């Protein structure tokens, strides 16, 4: 098994070094860049499996880096935010980060999230390769979504979310289950990540002109994909 390449953009050099040591036994090879500009350059020059991006960066902010990356790449991204800073966290998810961790994080938690995202982004072949719901077609192998011949760009997390809902159209999927399947962790109180991802997917579907199926929420329970036959 080849090592997965992970890039961390964080101005804390020591943290990067320690994380590198921490992740190495799990076949994760971490490289660090200390600024957004350097990080963007590294992303262009090499290919990476995952990016860890700190939101508080000197110079170009983490959010700006995130926006820049999302213009051209669907690479899985975990944002590092300051705890209690809901605005940053929500902004991060809105601009297409896959997950977030608040700093200072428990490194085991980071490892778990990295593994969850990696597992998900590996092509699975046990399920059927295509799901059709309403005007949507989900190609599970290539992780592509088509609506009437047009392709809709979703991040890995967004695709996974849509797939979870599409596997049982018309049925409410509880948030706990969505968090488990999409983000690979248990749903915690005060966690609105799934809601933000749902609103991102909704936004992308509606700007692609898709109104069938539509994602509905069941307050306090979860979400469902509603299909009009």
């Amino acid at each position, binding site marked *: 098994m080849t090592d997965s390449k992970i890039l961390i953009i964080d101005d804390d050099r020591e*943290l990067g070094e*320690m*994380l590198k040591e*921490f992740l190495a036994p799990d076949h994760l090879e971490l490289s660090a860049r200390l600024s957004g500009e350097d990080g963007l350059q590294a992303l262009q020059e090499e290919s990476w499996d995952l990016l860890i991006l700190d939101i*508080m960066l000197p110079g170009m902010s983490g959010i700006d880096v995130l926006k820049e990356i999302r213009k051209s790449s669907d690479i899985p991204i975990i944002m590092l935010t300051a705890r209690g*800073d809901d605005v940053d966290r929500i902004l991060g998810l809105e601009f297409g980060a896959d997950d977030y961790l608040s*700093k200072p994080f428990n490194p085991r938690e980071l490892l778990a999230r990295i593994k969850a995202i990696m597992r998900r982004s590996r092509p699975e072949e046990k399920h059927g390769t295509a799901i059709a719901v309403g005007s949507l077609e989900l190609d599970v192998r290539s992780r592509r979504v088509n609506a009437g011949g047009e392709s809709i760009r979703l991040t890995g997390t967004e695709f996974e979310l849509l797939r979870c809902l599409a596997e049982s159209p018309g049925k409410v999927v509880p948030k706990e289950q969505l968090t488990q399947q999409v983000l690979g962790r248990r749903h915690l109180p005060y966690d609105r990540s799934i809601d933000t991802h749902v609103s991102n997917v909704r936004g992308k579907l509606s700007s692609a002109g898709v109104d069938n199926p539509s994602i509905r929420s069941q307050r306090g329970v979860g979400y469902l994909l509603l299909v009009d036959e």
Partner: protein
Amino acid sequence: MRSLLIRIFASFWSIIVITIIAAAAIGFWYAERTREIMQNFEDSDAVLEASAALSEDGRDGLADWLRSLPGAAESLVFVVDDNGKDLLGRQLPSPVRFSMARASGRDRGRRPPKPDTRNIRPARPFTQLVGPDDRVYTIFVLPARSITTRWLVDRGRGGLVILALLVSAMVSYWLARTISRPVRRFRESANAIAGGNLDTRVAESVGKRRDEIGLLAQDFDRMADELQRAWLQQTELTRNVSHELRSPLARLRVALELARRKTGDLVELDKIDAETERLDELIGRILEYSRLDSDSHEVRSSIALDELLRSVVEDVRYEYGYQGAKASIELEADTECTIDGYPNALRSCVENVIRNAVQHSRDDGDVHVQLSLEDSQAVISVEDQGGGVREHELERIFEPFYRSTARQGEASRQTGGLGLAIASRATALNGGTIAASNAANGLCVEIRLPVAD
């Protein structure tokens, strides 16, 4: 006008000068006219004719003469007998009446009557004639009266007072307006700034005045600039401090995990881990508390309180269920009620109060959360079974890091002593009030919020 000093000085000065000049001019003009008319009357033979008529036909002759005088265009002639009556029975003007009253008083050796309140100057008698019956007839010649002169003269100096009042009222009103209007703007702006709207400035609304008020407006705005800058710096500082404190914490946690790998699980490492987490939570709360200070970057929106409560209670239940707390939370929120406010601040407020209650409840004690409506106010009450606090501490528990003597221990360490302080600030930010009281078995915290119309 450049200076407020000059403006005020000139206004008062001009009121006084105008009044004095007007009074003098009117008085002078009236005296001059009276003199002129008397002269004309004297130049005519009227008095001789009157004297002749009186000696021939007595009182009736004099009356006939008076009646035969040409219709007075410029003058009025009155003949008054010693009873103080006009021969033609006309109503006497007040200066004449006053003059007569004074003369009769003098005759009887009394002090002249005091001028009446209207401060009327007595008319000067033109001449006196003695009739065959030894009665004295006094002739008065007065200038004919236009409406304004009659108005002025009949009221004596009172007329002048009224004129002065009018002029001074106008000038004073203008002066007061030029001062009070900008002052009102200042008040509005000061209140807006106190209310957290640091963008407020006055110079624009006061206009391009170059007097003291204009300068004050510039100074006011400079002060507001400074305040805003200081506030931004403070916010920035808090953010940076929290970031700077968290970076070593982040390294500490990674180092801890690396140590754990090398040495195996030690109880001490768990403790270090737990304390690190606590420290982080405390930093988070300080940050939250300082953010709630005056400005919220949140957008105001309408919040359904019943839904908010349900979701917060669910989260707290989940959190404490997960931590193994035995206290259960009962929620009574059947009233639908919506308020206008900052959703995150309000959520944090309710959350902190409920967490505080759960942390202080004895193991089997329930926390009772209730939402009700009282006189267009939404009341959220959170009651625990934790024994309450002493009466004199009821207000102080909302101070940051205040530790109640009755509640010290594990629990207050968990909240970092900021939970209720955050709740208090968040309530104030949403225009509400928060208060605590001792209930049967514990503390009851009540949050009151104005309901949206």
